[in-house]
């Protein structure tokens, strides 16, 4: 008799499910808004303003059909992008969650763009009369976040999946006697990431101030929150397993000791391996990365084909202790 290895890991099924419903939900949002705008055709000028220059005067316009087609095409393009991310790299629940949230956000963005752009121009004769109030940008950027957060929350987490094999015998260990308890604590913080983050916030702030588009100050404000959450992470290895959490408290994740297949030291290049800095999903097997600088990092291989890479100094100590804790977790499960 031969046994066939499972050709599709369980996460692929979960990734297909979350990608399908989130893409459909995103598409439904944009198509619903498109149908609404289509119904407003009688109230809209032949050409609607689609872009406003500094000072709030319209400087580009297109037909209602063109507007609807552009918004739908943009949404479909974004949905395809996030579907690829979810399907190819969604081995961890956090990645599936982010991809599903991003898909619904894309649909919400298309819907908000359509409804705000067309809604402002109902009853106008020419697009030149269209005024863009300051709140429009805020609504377009922030409103889609609500359904996106809801969608992300709907994606189920990873079920418990304890490892079935012991940690490889040649993996590094920390020598501890039975009566010894240990914890390793470290911090992941950035070099280039920090500079880039501050640079982006300063640049977008200057842009908004120079152009006197005060509403666009929202962009650096959102970026600042994002970078603050990504700027430093605390890392802990103890009897419960491996924990990495932003110093702000979110985002973060925990790998239970009994789900650790093996921990090791690796070297990463944030741009080359993860396409950027911060909380990322990697090109290699959808490993989740908390990568704030290049160089030494701890790699935690987890059951279910998952992986987590965190850039910390002294990664060797962290990896060795985690392997020891993984041994202990297995010993606790099968006494004797």
């Amino acid at each position, binding site marked *: 008799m031969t046994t066939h290895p499972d050709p599709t890991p369980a996460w692929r099924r979960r990734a297909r499910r979350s990608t399908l419903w989130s893409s459909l939900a995103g598409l439904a949002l944009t198509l619903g808004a498109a149908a609404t705008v289509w119904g407003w055709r009688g109230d809209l000028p032949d050409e609607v303003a689609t872009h406003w220059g500094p000072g709030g005067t319209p400087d580009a316009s297109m037909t209602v059909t063109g507007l609807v087609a552009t918004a739908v095409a943009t949404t479909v393009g974004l949905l395809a992008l996030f579907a690829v991310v979810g399907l190819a790299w969604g081995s961890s629940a956090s990645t599936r969650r982010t991809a599903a949230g991003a898909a619904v956000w894309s649909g919400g963005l298309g819907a908000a763009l359509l409804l705000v752009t067309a809604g402002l121009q109902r009853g106008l004769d020419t697009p030149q009369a269209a005024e863009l109030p300051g709140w429009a940008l805020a609504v377009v950027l922030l409103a889609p976040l609500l359904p996106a957060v809801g969608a992300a929350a709907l994606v189920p987490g990873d079920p418990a999946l304890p490892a079935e094999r012991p940690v490889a015998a040649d993996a590094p260990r*920390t020598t501890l006697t039975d*009566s*010894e*308890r*240990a*914890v390793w*604590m*470290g911090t992941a913080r950035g070099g280039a990431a920090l500079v880039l983050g501050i640079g982006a916030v300063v640049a977008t702030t200057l842009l908004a101030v120079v152009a006197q588009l005060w509403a666009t100050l929202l962009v650096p404000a959102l970026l600042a929150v994002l970078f603050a959450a990504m700027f430093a992470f605390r890392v802990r290895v103890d009897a419960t397993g491996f924990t990495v959490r932003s110093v702000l408290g979110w985002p973060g994740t925990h790998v239970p000791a009994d789900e650790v297949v093996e921990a090791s030291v690796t070297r990463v290049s944030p741009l080359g391996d993860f396409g950027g800095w911060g909380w990322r999903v990697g090109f290699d097997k959808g490993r989740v990365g908390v990568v704030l600088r290049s160089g030494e990092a701890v790699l935690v291989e987890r059951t279910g084909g998952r992986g987590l890479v965190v850039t910390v100094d*002294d990664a060797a*100590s962290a990896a060795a202790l985690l392997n020891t804790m993984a041994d202990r977790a297995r010993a606790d499960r099968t006494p004797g």
Partner: protein
Amino acid sequence: MLWTIDAGSDEPLYAQLVAQAHLAVARGDLSPGDRLPAARELATSLDLNVHTVLRAYQQLRDEGLVDLRRSRGAVITGAAATDLTAVEEALRTFVAAAREARLSPEATTTLLQEELKR
């Protein structure tokens, strides 16, 4: 950094933490300005009472190794960086001599403890 405690040791748990902080500073694993872990977090991870960790931090403060501040926790002081090269050299000589005399590790430790009590 790595913190270990041995629940089977005769040495009090808080004293084990104090010793490790001193060692970490001596080795350069902790530098002035570095922060010790939050007492609650260290206690949870090592399955200790938080008062055990706080007692260790208080002793480290009394010894001048850390500043304790309500807002920032336990921060390694500038005065903490003591040069231990001479002590380490003397220890190596001591251990080598003990091995030469075929003393057991227990007997060697007892000798050291007796000397410390003088």
